């Protein structure tokens, strides 16, 4: 456990049982009880684990549909396809893996029971959104009221959560097991709309119209490299202020580097609130001498260069944009700072997500270091898509040699092929384990959990539940298998 981790609930890295973990959470017995209710030790017999949920998926559907008519039709589809897929899947898809030796285990259920904000970060293509959604679903089914903010979910995953329109408002996800008293809302971030809403909320309608029509604003609000990150933070601040949920889970934008995510808010905040924009405003106000005073460079020099770089007409648009934004300057910086503080406060946990690939783990490593530097509370690392074999007693080399031997004699082609499959899998698993160990040796105290690779992408609630079980090391699955 790293010293940066917030909350006593994380101190238990004991693998032995989920039932005791919830009880140690300081954040309220009710929640802990909720966690216990859904934990593996409870009455549900092995083999029937899926059935109460399957019933639940079709059962309350109509009642909920009536409650929220707007999303009903679409969400029902999601629930239906979820139930259908569950019926088709004969085998379990993710098994709980033994914890690698000497590595503290990420206590997912403890975190879900006690935290108020969980931020999932990592490089692109590592299953970040799926992880965020699976955590949210698990927390909701353990009795917490949860909202998950996704940035750019895969279409079918979005559909399974009823996220068919990008309307920037959290909507209830249907098909969730509410028996523990929880609730799950989900939303997709619309960054331009979030920006527009800020503008509309903080200025007169006349000025807002002027600003919304400015080409510089339009471009900034839809395509600036940091806007998405900033707006995700802004939205997180709004969700936090609304105080409608016990837990907010945030997926982070697919930045070119995972580190951009932490910097972007302050960068945009600094820009919108900054010296440079004030300078751009000055020609209309104080005149050129101020430039000499502030920069030691004449006004002429300054505008000459800027004009050359971005063009005179664009500079005019920028100046107009700046005057229109002026009233909001303080607000932007204030909120950016507030959200940044929120991220570092007790009750927030960062979960770094990676895949067992060189680049993704390197990025994860950078991110872990960076969180530490910034004093941000790191809960741990999720390594998705690990391949494993329970037949490691038969090594890849022996398996392959046996296959060659059979092939040579033209015998037992089936066994030969299956032995090759096994050898292939072991080699992949060994390579992945080596990559994971590289991370572990650099960060021995970072708790982690490995999630097995699934044959197919997750796009229904049943699949998210399985991921959630695997994330929490929920033993029920192992017994089902």
């Amino acid at each position: 456990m790293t010293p940066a981790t917030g909350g006593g609930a994380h101190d238990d890295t004991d693998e032995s049982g989920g039932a005791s973990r919830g009880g140690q959470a300081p954040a309220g017995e009710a929640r802990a009880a909720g966690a216990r209710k859904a934990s593996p030790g409870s009455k549900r017999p092995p083999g029937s684990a899926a059935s109460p949920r399957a019933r639940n998926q079709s059962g309350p559907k109509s009642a909920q549909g009536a409650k929220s008519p707007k999303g009903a039709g679409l969400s029902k589809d999601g629930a239906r396809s979820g139930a259908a897929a569950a019926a088709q899947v004969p085998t379990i898809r993710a098994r709980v893996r033994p914890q690698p030796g000497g590595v503290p285990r990420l206590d997912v259920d403890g975190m879900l029971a006690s935290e108020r904000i969980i931020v999932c970060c990592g490089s692109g293509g590592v299953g970040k959104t799926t992880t965020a959604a699976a955590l949210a679903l698990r927390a909701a089914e353990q009795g917490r009221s949860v909202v998950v903010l996704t940035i750019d979910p895969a279409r079918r995953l979005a559909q399974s959560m009823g996220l068919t329109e990008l309307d920037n408002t959290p909507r209830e996800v249907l098909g969730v097991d509410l028996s523990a008293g929880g609730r799950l809302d989900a939303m997709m971030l619309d960054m331009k709309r979030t920006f527009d809403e800020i503008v509309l909320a903080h200025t007169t309608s006349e000025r807002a119209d002027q600003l919304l029509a400015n080409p510089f604003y339009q471009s900034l609000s839809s395509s600036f490299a940091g806007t998405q990150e900033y707006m995700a933070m802004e939205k997180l601040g709004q969700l936090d202020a609304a105080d409608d949920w016990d837990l907010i889970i945030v997926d982070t934008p697919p930045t070119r580097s995972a580190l951009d995510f932490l910097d972007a808010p302050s960068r945009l905040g600094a820009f919108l609130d900054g010296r440079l924009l004030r300078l751009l405003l000055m020609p209309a106000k104080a005149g050129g001498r101020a430039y000499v005073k502030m920069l030691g460079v004449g006004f002429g020099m300054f505008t000459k260069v800027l004009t050359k770089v971005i063009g005179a007409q664009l500079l005019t648009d920028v100046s107009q944009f700046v005057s229109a934004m002026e009233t909001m300057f303080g607000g932007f910086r204030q909120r950016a700072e507030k959200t940044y503080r929120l991220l570092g406060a007790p009750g927030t946990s960062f979960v770094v997500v990676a895949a067992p690939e060189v680049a993704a783990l390197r990025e994860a490593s950078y991110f872990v270091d960076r969180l530490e530097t910034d004093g941000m509370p790191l809960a741990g690392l999720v390594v998705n898509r690990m391949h494993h074999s329970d037949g490691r007693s038969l090594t890849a080399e022996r398996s392959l040699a046996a296959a060659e031997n059979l092939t040579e004699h033209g015998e037992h082609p089936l066994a030969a092929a299956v032995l090759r499959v096994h050898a292939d899998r072991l080699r992949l698993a060994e390579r992945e384990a080596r990559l994971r160990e590289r991370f572990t040796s650099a960060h021995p105290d970072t708790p982690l959990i490995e999630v097995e690779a699934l044959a197919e992408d997750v796009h229904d609630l049943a699949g998210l539940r399985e991921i959630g079980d695997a994330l929490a090391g929920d033993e029920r699955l192992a017994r089902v298998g």
Partner: protein
Amino acid sequence: MPELAAHAGRGVIRIVRRGGGAEANSGAGAGTVVAVTASERDRKGEKPAGPWRRRLHVVTGKGGTGKTTVASALALALATGGQRVLLTEVEGRQQIAQVFDTPPLPYRERKVASAPGGGEVYALAVDAEEALLEYLEMFYNLRSAGKVLGKMGAIDFATTIAPGVRDVLLTGKIKEAVNRPDGTRPSGLAYDAVVLDAPPTGRITRFLNVAREVVGLAKMGPIRSQADGVLAVLHSGQTAVHLVTLLEEMPVQETIDAVAELRAADLPVGGVVVNMVRPPLLGAKELRAARAGTLDGEELAAGIKEAGLEPTADLVAELAREAAQHAERVALEAAQRVEVAALDQPMYELPLASDGMDMGMLYRFAEMLRAQRMVG
């Protein structure tokens, strides 16, 4: 393709396209393979197919699909036979240096590899701030002024905040390399081809189209002329945008979306490189049985015993489970392959390097791309 098959070991590298591909793969994924040569395509007068004779090859793909590896292999393939190729990246991640196992690239073109037949691959990590300073110096002799601006955040402003300026500078630098003259070389150009390891599929159209956006924003001025130059390179048959995907749902979906966006933006879509292909190790019948959970356990146990191993119940069950997962994956890959084939762009395939990538594998990938006539 005997030469190719040899490189891929047991695997078979296939070029599957269109309707034929869909039918061939509708079974358990081990169906007949349709190989289409470039000359066949040309005869049919279809879309421009490989080999792609372009000056600029843009390589994009979803994160995790291995686009840097493919871009690097493509650069080697293009350089083979004595060409000089520039491989560039624009995201400041120093991915190329990692592929070629060199120290981080400075903002200076540097030779990173030789290709068979006297070819050379140079590499450059384009940095927006450096590109801006270079640009100021080149056109206005304003480098020192640029440094003053840097101190007060104006460079940051111009390169990361002013809409699109950063991407214009990056694409502008690529355009400069594509067009750079060199009288000492037979082609009269510094590089015979430029390969860009581009931003991922989710951002590629916006990145390449930034010039168009800037043309809308800046009616005149140097940024405008820079943007005009970029548009000329992208839209005059000198460029192809290749997409790298895996046979997995999300990368394929993103590829399909990106192709639609690129087409809508009138950007030249090139080939689709299917990366990390793992050939089926079981026959069609066995794949079906494995998926259905009806694999002949006794036969399996007998075979394991025959091979001199102890067929414990646990081991046989685990092997059957692994075979089932393998079969499941093969079936999903076949379905995804149909989706990719439906894009109607030429497809190329590269196998999974299960022991990880190294330079040796990179050269083999380059040969495979040439053998499949992506370039050459």
